[in-house]
């Protein structure tokens, strides 16, 4: 087998096997270097995979040499290639910028463990996206969850611990619900491979274990993806985590759970269960709309900068679910694109917050006075990513807003009211982004704070600005992610092979 054929396996193996190696690299500088090298390597593999998928061949890899239903198969198609790019990109970028920020927050002797956990998180997420076996997804979901618990528990503030404990409890319940769902399906179909499941579920579809299984899987993954009513763990966890961890997790952790939900729903349940489209829409649509409106309004009145952005993440996840709940090609394209664009926008915003944290111990909006004068470049990057979050034209956010609105209009069932919801929430986004801008630019610096020019370290600033410019680039030339998103929509809903 040539090297290219091994790529799906290497995508998971490279970060996973380099994690134990990094634990041995005791001098802390080396640990960061090793982790970044592994991160960049996995990003390169993801790009190679995306290129391969773009010219049409879905990569299937039989693990251990055993054919699909008997062994575990890995499958990389358009949708997984897009999410892979997103996960490894966010991981590599956050790692590149992590050195200075992590040096301030994690003691040197604990850093090798920290970076090893980071790589395990990356490997876990990549493992979920690449895998085509239901139980294998559970195992890698556990790896990525454990890694993210460890990363968040590294937070300097004592409040990180109860926050991550609540996340652990809810995450484990979510994963176990998913396990029950998979168990029930396995009981009725006798197989664990997703494609095989889709083929065999036809004849047992009317029985109620399958319906209950669908319920359990959807609730479990909704819990992991922090969909609206089950999102209570997200704001605290992201607020008290170390800054660079928030960048990494906010960009891709919840999206992978949504990826599994969409893949499971459209491949396994969709055309098989009688009126399942209606059920999924009946379940997902109200939750998404509620999530968008409530989370945006809460974000508008939030005082702490990081918690504000974390709450707005819940709203943006609502958008992705809204796109998926249309169960149409346009809908899936919109939600896939928004996964990509939100990762860019939110990753950039949290990177800027990490820069701010260098000179502002307390990140409450009332304490950020005079930030623009002291750190003009960081604030500019923050404004650019904020605009992308709102969806101003010319930025990546606008593309996904445009697709979402067209999908809403095409969905027919009172499409216009959904358009109204999307626009109202964009205006709410304008309000809370502008609260930040006004706090940074116009608030007078607090009395004792010095106003000398003091920018964030160069390495962190460069990555922040790179992400900000990417936001604009993908706003004007979104061909790559768009091609992948369209491919995934055709695959999932269009019934293409």
């Amino acid at each position, binding site marked *: 087998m040539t090297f290219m054929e091994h790529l799906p396996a290497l995508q998971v193996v490279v970060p996973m096997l380099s994690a134990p190696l990094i634990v041995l690299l005791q001098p802390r500088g080396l640990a960061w270097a090793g982790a970044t090298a592994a991160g960049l390597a996995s990003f390169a593999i993801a790009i190679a995979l995306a290129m391969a998928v773009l010219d049409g061949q879905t990569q299937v890899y039989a693990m*251990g040499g055993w054919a699909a*239903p008997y062994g*575990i198969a890995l499958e990389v198609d358009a949708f997984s290639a897009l999410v892979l790019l997103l996960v490894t990109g966010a991981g590599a970028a956050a790692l590149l910028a992590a050195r200075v920020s992590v040096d301030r927050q994690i003691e040197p002797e604990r850093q090798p463990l920290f970076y090893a956990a980071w790589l395990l998180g990356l490997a876990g997420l990549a493992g979920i996206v690449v895998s085509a076996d239901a139980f*294998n997804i559970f195992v890698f979901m556990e790896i990525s969850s454990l890694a993210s618990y*460890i990363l968040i*528990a590294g937070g300097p503030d004592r409040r990180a611990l109860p926050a991550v404990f609540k996340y652990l409890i809810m995450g484990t319940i979510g994963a176990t619900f998913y396990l029950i769902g998979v168990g029930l399906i396995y009981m009725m179909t006798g197989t664990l491979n997703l494609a095989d499941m889709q083929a065999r579920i036809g004849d047992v579809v009317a029985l109620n*274990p399958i319906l209950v299984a669908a319920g359990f899987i959807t609730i479990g993954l909704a819990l992991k993806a922090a969909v609206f009513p089950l999102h209570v763990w997200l704001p605290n966890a992201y607020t008290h985590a170390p800054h660079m961890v928030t960048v990494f997790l906010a960009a891709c952790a919840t999206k992978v759970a949504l990826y599994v939900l969409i893949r499971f729903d459209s491949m396994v349940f969709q055309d098989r269960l009688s009126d399942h489209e209606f059920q999924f829409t009946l379940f997902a649509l109200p939750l998404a709309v509620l999530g968008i409106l409530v989370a945006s309004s809460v974000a508008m009145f939030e005082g702490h900068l990081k918690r504000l952005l974390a709450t707005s993440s819940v709203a943006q996840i609502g958008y992705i679910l809204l796109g998926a709940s249309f169960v149409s090609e346009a809908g899936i394209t919109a939600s896939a694109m928004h996964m990509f664009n939100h990762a860019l926008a939110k990753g950039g915003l949290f990177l800027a917050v990490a820069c701010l944290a260098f000179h502002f111990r307390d990140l409450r909006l009332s304490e950020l006075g005079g930030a623009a004068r002291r750190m003009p470049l960081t604030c500019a990057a923050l404004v650019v990513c904020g605009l992308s979050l709102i969806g101003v034209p010319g930025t990546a956010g606008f593309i996904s807003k445009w697709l979402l609105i067209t999908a809403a209009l095409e969905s027919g069932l009172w499409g216009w009211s959904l358009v109204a919801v999307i626009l109202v929430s964009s205006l709410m986004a304008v309000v809370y982004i502008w609260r930040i801008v006004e706090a940074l630019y116009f608030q007078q610096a607090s009395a004792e704070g010095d106003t000398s020019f003091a920018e964030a370290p160069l390495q962190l600033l460069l990555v922040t600005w790179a992400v900000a410019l990417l936001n604009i680039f993908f706003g004007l030339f979104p061909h790559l992610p768009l091609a992948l998103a369209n491919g995934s929509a055709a695959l999932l809903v269009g019934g293409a092979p």
Partner: protein
Amino acid sequence: MIYVFALFLLTLLVITAVAIVRTENLFVAVMLTSIFSLLMAANFFILDAADVALTEAAVGAGVTTVIFLSALALTGDWEKPRPGGRTVALGTVGVLAMLLIYASFDKPRLGDPEAPVHQHVAPWYLEKTPEYMDIPNVVTAILSSFRGYDTLGEVFVVFAACIGVLFILGVKPARQTAAAPQPVSGLRHHLIPQVVGRLLVPFIVLFGLYVQFHGEYGPGGGFQAGAIIATGVILYALLEGEAEALRAVPRSVLLALVVGGALLYGAVGVVCMLKGGAFLDYSVLAADPVFGQQLGILVIEAGVGMAVCGALLSIFHAFAARESMT
């Protein structure tokens, strides 16, 4: 006839679970959890899941109880009761129970041979194991070869837990209590347990190794062996005191064990790739594919055993060291 006995054990299981939840003394709750695990192991054995019964006994009853107790030693023994209406919680949970019981009526009856589970993938495994691997224990065959990738993920979950506990407990406790750390207590000055311990520990470790390498023939394998060896060393630490155990198996060795185990497993996979097969495809390891499979299974089981043993021990030492600090 066996069903009646199963019926009795399952009912006992439910009673233990309810007792655990109701009791307010955490120490009692932990002991009941240990009994709960033992009952689960018994149930598994009745349902013909020998490997799982051994794992549940070794990992569930043994190590979990030890970790719980060491955590209890650092936190309080008593739980504050929570007055007030429990209707909401009962309500939601009740709905879930109704849903599950409603769903259970279309499920195949216990032991029904025509159930879809036994039709599709399982017969292939039972038929192909003697042909490809020629080892009696089909569970180990699936665990290590057919679904070896799952077990690789599994080893890295254990690895993650190990580095997680080391990372979280790596922080020095905020307030050093004024009292000098009291002498390393264990049952140091009690002669009888020490004598019996010294007699037993070697046999426990020997039995662990037996389970490790006997994995292909009977119930056993990496996880169970790692847990048993870890329990043996923990028993030694309890009897002789934690410092003594650290002298016997120092922390660097433990870390080497965990990292070594995980890397060994990964290395076998990568070697398979280099030799031209897919990742974790052992048949390319040796000229004769069947021998290659057996070699692969043996090596990765050793890797799993090392990783699990190292991880569980370093977790125990992280908790125990914490005790002497506060």
